[in-house]
């Protein structure tokens, strides 16, 4: 561990891994509850066109990815709201259009090899300037969740109830999608656009095996996110493996452990049910009396 910290790029990469591990599952918790687990994956495809545009025009690829993926996310939400029946086809068109556009544009620029580093991540090429951008975006994402969390929670529970509570449902839907897009851009240098969605979804899927509440699921998922991002990065350095896939496979390993652990915990709880059931019958009797 100590020799890892001797390298500048590894210190930067580690900080980045912590930021990604925190933000991706935070946004992911809302996405999973909204049944939009694959939204991040789709945005990743669209972001490729942004990278291509950035490279071609001599601008920062990160900026290009940010602009195009946020616009793509907004487009997805608008199309989802407009066309109920053909929504998944519309999404497919956007995703494949984004991927094809990205490959074409980067090829035109002669950066085919460069594309690889965005598809699967290349954390060793990350600079301090990259880190500041990622840190800024991560703060923005966590700030949005802190500010709008209560409203997003109700939206993800039941959209109709959210509307009957006077919440700006359309704005909040676009906000989740746009926040997901920003998170994709944060994570792309480290784990790559094709695997970015994994860190938004897998830690949440693992956490919900063990928890009873929404907030606790989010917190446990953040813990799993940081754990797999940091240990995946360290492992990839030690054993000379690509970091993105190492991080994702570690998160999957945590998921498998959580499924087994969750089953054991639930079994124990079921065995303890007689006491719980008695309690609820008493509560019901009280209500009847009152």
């Amino acid at each position, binding site marked *: 561990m100590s020799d890892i910290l001797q390298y500048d790029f590894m210190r930067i990469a580690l900080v980045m891994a912590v930021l990604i591990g925190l933000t991706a599952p935070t946004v992911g*918790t809302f996405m999973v509850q909204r049944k939009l*687990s694959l939204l991040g994956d789709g945005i990743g495809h669209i972001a490729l066109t942004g990278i291509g545009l950035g490279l071609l025009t001599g601008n920062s690829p990160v900026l290009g990815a940010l602009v195009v993926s946020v616009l793509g996310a907004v487009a997805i939400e608008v199309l989802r709201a407009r066309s109920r029946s053909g929504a998944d086809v519309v999404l497919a068109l956007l995703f494949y259009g984004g991927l094809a556009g990205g490959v074409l544009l980067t090829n035109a620029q002669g950066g085919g090899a460069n594309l690889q580093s965005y598809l699967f991540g290349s954390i060793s090429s990350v600079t301090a300037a990259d880190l500041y951008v990622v840190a800024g975006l991560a703060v923005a994402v966590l700030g949005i969740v802190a500010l709008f969390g209560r409203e997003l929670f109700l939206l993800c*529970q*039941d959209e109709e109830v959210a509307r009957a509570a006077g919440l700006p449902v359309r704005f909040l839907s676009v906000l989740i999608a746009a926040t997901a897009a920003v998170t994709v851009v944060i994570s792309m240098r480290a784990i790559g656009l094709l695997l970015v969605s994994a860190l938004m979804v897998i830690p949440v899927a693992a956490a*919900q095996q063990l928890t009873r509440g929404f907030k606790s699921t989010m917190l446990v998922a953040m813990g799993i996110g940081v754990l797999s991002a940091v240990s995946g990065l360290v492992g990839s350095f030690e054993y000379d493996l690509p970091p993105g896939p190492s991080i994702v496979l570690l998160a999957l390993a945590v998921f498998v452990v959580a499924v087994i652990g969750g089953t054991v915990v639930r079994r124990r709880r079921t065995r303890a049910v007689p006491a719980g059931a008695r309690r609820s019958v008493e509560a*019901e009797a009280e209500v009847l009396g009152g």
Partner: protein
Amino acid sequence: MIKTTGTTKAGGSPAHLAPFAMTGGHVRLEGREVLRDVDLTVAPGDVLAVLGPNGAGKSTLIKAMLGLLPLSEGRTEIFGVPAARFRDWKRVGYVPQRLPMGGGVPATVREVVASGRVARQSRWRPTSAADRAAVDRALETVGLTDRARDSAHLLSGGQQQRVLIARALAGEPEVFVMDEPTAGVDAASQAALAGTLRRLAAGGRTVVLVTHELGPMEPLINRTVVLDHGRIAQITGSTA
């Protein structure tokens, strides 16, 4: 406990206005007319039951009254304001038929109930002591205080229904709109619901509820509307 006095009237339309008033309401869903020419006014203090067979348009009616479904013809108002322009949503509590699973992220009973406060909360302020007290009262009213930390989705159907009612109670609205609160609910939860309803009625709250059968709630209801094939077949009882 539900407060019997001090109903919030501030910041909205005058209190004497009808919570809901629909005139000549039609709703069309996927080319089919599911609600036809409905005239219905719900007066303050009414406890109104919407009855009728499956597919008669009961849920459509209440969703249209709340502005969740647009009318193809006619107009509908909430507290005197056209539903599409109504903004004072803290006066209305909507209880849907069920608690959707979504993507399976768990939520505790308390988290679900607390989300009923959202229309009263500012984005910029953290949860207040008043918010917490309202959630405590709502949980106590439906008898789920001891289940507050459990996952809402693992409760029985009747208990989940009580969670949804508690969520509406937590918002302390003047009007409750409940979609089949007794469907698939065990006898104990039905009785608990009737008790809750009695307190709401005694507190002067307006309640609109969709149901198949009145059961233990019958003595509390002062008006019934029977729907058949999207039309009002019968209205009985008088305004409160």
